[in-house]
């Protein structure tokens, strides 16, 4: 792995968490903000394979867990699962086609919410599926899909010609 790729892959989750907790928290819709971490985990997953997606998802999730300082491991697990499963889209749709990340991010958002809910339920946290939770998931999927288009164009170009070249 090149030095630049490593640097970018470290900087992406660090700034994603910073942006989500500051900038996007001012521009949220019903308290829902886009999930940049998930988007980048899905990108890794469809371009580098499901094992890479799972490892990157685990690392990003752990950083988020340490930042949140509560239920440490929940996001690490859910993002690792999401990264692993969305890697399937690598085989189903060509990564060159914009449909691949769009589908993968939409499915990934849903998967991540389900995984988080199941893990929280397993560890005995107070969780419940409400109408606003379902609506929130739909809004977040919409947010994520909107952001996927410009982000994937940048990421894909950088993956083939720029700093993110493997």
């Amino acid at each position: 792995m090149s030095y630049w790729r490593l640097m970018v892959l470290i900087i992406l989750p660090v700034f994603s968490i910073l942006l989500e907790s500051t900038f996007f928290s001012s521009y949220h819709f019903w308290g829902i903000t886009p999930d940049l971490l998930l988007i980048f985990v899905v990108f890794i997953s469809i371009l580098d394979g499901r094992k890479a997606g799972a490892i990157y998802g685990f690392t990003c999730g752990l950083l988020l867990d340490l930042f949140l300082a509560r239920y440490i491991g929940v996001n690490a697990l859910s993002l690792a699962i999401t990264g692993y499963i969305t890697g399937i889209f690598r085989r189903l749709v060509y990564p060159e086609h914009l449909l691949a990340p769009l589908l993968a991010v939409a499915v990934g958002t849903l998967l991540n919410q389900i995984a988080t809910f199941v893990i929280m339920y397993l560890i005995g946290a107070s969780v419940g599926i409400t109408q606003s939770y379902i609506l929130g998931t739909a809004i977040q999927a919409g947010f994520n899909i909107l952001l996927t288009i410009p982000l994937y164009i940048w990421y894909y170009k950088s993956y083939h010609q720029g700093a993110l070249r493997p």
Partner: protein
Amino acid sequence: MGAIWRNRWWWLVIVIILALLSLAHWSGQERSGLTVPERVVRVFYGYLQTGVAETGSVFDNFGFYLTSKERLHNDNKRLQAEADQLRLEIQRLKEYQMEAQRLQQLLGFRNYSPQYQQLGAKVIARSLGYWNETVFIDRGSADGVKRDLAVITPDGLIGRIINVQKNTSEVLLITSRQSGVGTVVQQTRAPGIVNGLGNDGYLAMNNIPYFVKIYKDDQVITSGLSSVFPPGIPVGKIVDVKTDQNGLTRSARLKPSADMDRLEEVIVVIGYNPQAAPSIQNTGTGDASQGRTP
């Protein structure tokens, strides 16, 4: 299938999953402090978030900058740039005006409520995810903030401090499912514990005995029975009351008194002196039960 279980990597994955589930269960409980890795990450993000909050106007006007940049390419770019400059100035002045109004409100509250020793704080960030309802403020142990102090706005209770770093602190919002506040209904003095309902934005008061009088629009305030929240802080207003299936208890849904979606400046109650409370005047509420629907 058997090949999967013979692969030692799968066993490693299972061990990691079980270890993480145990860690998640442990870290979900009330803890007296954070671990070293959590503290390192928090301090690191504390500096970044404070930096972002201080240059917030740049972010606030981000859309504006983008549009003005586009206009620079137009024929009348010089005039347009001037107009944009003025618009930015107006936008900034509007922000200052609104900030001044909010600070005036806080100052008024401070003068009106001398019983609370208060520390003003700015909300610098919100936590992420559906199940973590916390905000971060720009005051920490260096300013005298401690764990379990109440955080309020002039409108009502916001939450309590759950984690403290040197220059920042984390506030667990009352709308969080992990939150519990000892309260009484102001008019009828009916006691109860108010819990959050997550991102629904509402609060719940459960297990109210059926004989206790409780009505829509009743104001619920902190009871002061716990060591965390001083008494008399508005928590919320009752939106609806339902009788539970057992017929012996009722549950009420509350709308928080403070606007939890627009938290910018808040007050940390660093001390409470009941002797300093202003004398009680007739607030004109009249008979609490008149004209109400249960």
